[in-house]
């Protein structure tokens, strides 16, 4: 039973990684760039949601919508100001800009909201579903996060494979130059990708902080890195891969803590990552393709 409890803890942690990883993988899959500022957009989303719900007492649902709106605008703005001018630059330059953007957002948040940790009000309360006469419990937030992940995963996959805009995205991902020659507005398409990715970040922020309720300007940074790892683990660029990678990373982390050593859990997680990448260099569900970074 303890094993099952640990498994559920792993799934709840993993579902958070998964939902962040979806944003990473989406932007990477289309724009072929690593948006390291993704974790910090998550943090901004969480703050917007926090202020809306705690200070202005909006219902949580409205708070999340508001956060999605702010993050979408922010994501497009970041893309416009920091990444678009570098469209023709080497990918290394874009990567560094993204890291710079990440620090910029963190420090702006420090100035705006100060460093004092805030306790985030859960958007679905702190209850749990009890199974097997209360021996197992799955918190509401975990159930919500997993359902949100699955819904987002299906909607995104359908959007990318079925709609015209989705086709335009795939075309840009394969060859920007050729896509442009076919009459696709590459800049608008990439901008849309960032808008979607950042909107997802807001949802991830609200869920992350509902599950682990302290909110600080650095809240998004470390989970962001872990989620990036999860995205690579599952095969970066692949949407189901991000989901699978996130869940597996969470479960491995909790099991490593429980059965190997709490001191070595991160070492174990990354050792598993290395082994997976040695065997399958493109990640679990990734397509074999040329890497640009």
């Amino acid at each position, binding site marked *: 039973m303890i094993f099952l409890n640990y498994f559920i803890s792993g799934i709840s942690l993993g579902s958070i990684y998964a939902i962040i990883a979806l944003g990473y993988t989406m932007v990477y899959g289309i724009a072929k760039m690593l948006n390291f500022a993704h974790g910090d957009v998550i943090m901004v989303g969480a703050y917007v949601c926090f202020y809306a719900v705690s200070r202005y007492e909006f219902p949580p649902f409205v708070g999340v919508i508001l956060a999605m709106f702010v993050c979408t605008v922010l994501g497009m703005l970041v893309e416009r100001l920091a990444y678009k001018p570098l469209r023709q630059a080497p990918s290394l330059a874009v990567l560094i800009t993204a890291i710079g953007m990440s620090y910029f957002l963190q420090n702006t948040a420090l100035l705006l909201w100060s460093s004092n940790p805030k306790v985030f009000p859960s958007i679905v309360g702190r209850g749990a579903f009890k199974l097997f006469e209360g021996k197992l419990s799955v918190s509401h937030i975990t159930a919500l996060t997993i359902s949100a992940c699955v819904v987002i995963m299906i909607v995104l996959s359908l959007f990318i494979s079925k709609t015209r805009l989705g086709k335009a995205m795939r075309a840009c991902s394969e060859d920007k130059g050729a896509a442009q020659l076919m009459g696709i507005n590459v800049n608008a398409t990439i901008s849309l990708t960032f808008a979607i990715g950042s909107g997802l970040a807001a949802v991830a922020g609200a869920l992350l902080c509902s599950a682990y309720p302290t909110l*600080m300007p650095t809240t998004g940074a470390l989970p962001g890195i872990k989620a990036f790892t999860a995205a690579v683990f599952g095969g970066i660029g692949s949407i189901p891969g991000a989901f699978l990678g996130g869940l597996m990373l969470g479960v491995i982390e909790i099991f490593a803590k429980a059965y190997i050593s709490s001191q070595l859990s991160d070492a174990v997680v990354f050792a598993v990552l290395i082994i997976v990448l040695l065997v399958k260099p493109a990640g679990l569900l990734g397509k074999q393709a040329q890497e640009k970074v």
Partner: protein
Amino acid sequence: MRKVLVSMLLVLAVSSCAFGAAFKLGGTAPLTGGAAIYGMAAMRGAQIAVDEINAMGGDVKFELRYEDDTHDAEKAVNAYNALKDWGMQLSLGSVTSKPCEATAAENFADRIFALTPSASSAAVTEGKDNVFQMCFVDPNQGTASAQYIGGKGFAKKVAVIWKNDDVYSKGIRDTFVETAPKFGLEVVSETTFADGNDNDFSVQLTEAQTNGAELVFLPMYYQPASLILAQAKAMDYAPKWFGVDGMDGILTMEGFDKSLAEGVMLLTPFNSDATDARTKNFVAEYQKRHGEIPNQFAADGYDCVYAYCQALTQAKATADMSAEELCAKMIEQFTTMTFNGVTGENVRWAANGEVTKDPKGMVIKDGAYVGLD
């Protein structure tokens, strides 16, 4: 006549200079960043003491300056250098341990005396004759906690959750685990976390619970502690909780459900409920200025300035002395004097810079700190 006038003016100028001169007191602290709550408190406490001392009009006057180090060792050294350029004569070191280990080395090399309010790791004072602490050194917090828990009979079986990438947490944990058996305590579970995996504590808590821990010892800062308390509640695990001075501040977190911290015990040298005139006066002034009850860091900052005042008065030091001269005098004073402050009576320092005073047990009751004794 003109000569007389000139010399009179000169005398006036010199005397007013001597009268207005103040000791330049500098310190670095996290004024922004995750640890800002400690830095701001220590700085505000020190400022109140400086204002009080200056208003008394005695021989000793201070000019206080704090620089932000954001709880980062590298930035702390930059901040220290800025203070040195300003002409700092006496130093308040740094507020948090990691930065203070870096600035203390500079203090030692530059022969500028330092008295840190709250940097508690042993490495801060180790091998430096001119760096002193107002707070307990970490190893002593571990021993004192074990002694307190065992002595009061709070529990027999204890679990420890500590942060293994933090010198503060590790220092306390090491001596706690080492001395626990002496006081009849059995450490039944010991688990860790670090930056990057400090969100989920279900494993640590489950392990403590299955091993039958009646009390969980949390040598850490309050931010992860708040997550631990919330997750323990979610899994219906209700042991006794015992924290150290880093737990101070948990009640002032915005949005924190204070009922989670109900019954949490912590060891801290400062009790804002104490009824002595000194504490009452300090708490009232702090509340008037900042609208909240001062925590232990504020009290440490306050005491540091008063300890300096006492030492400087006894040494008959004047503000025109160089930092190096003052350093020698301060070492002599601090190793021999006895100080009474808001963080303890009969406070004494050993030659290695460590402080001796009695810790006070506190418990959180109805969302406020109450003395345990």
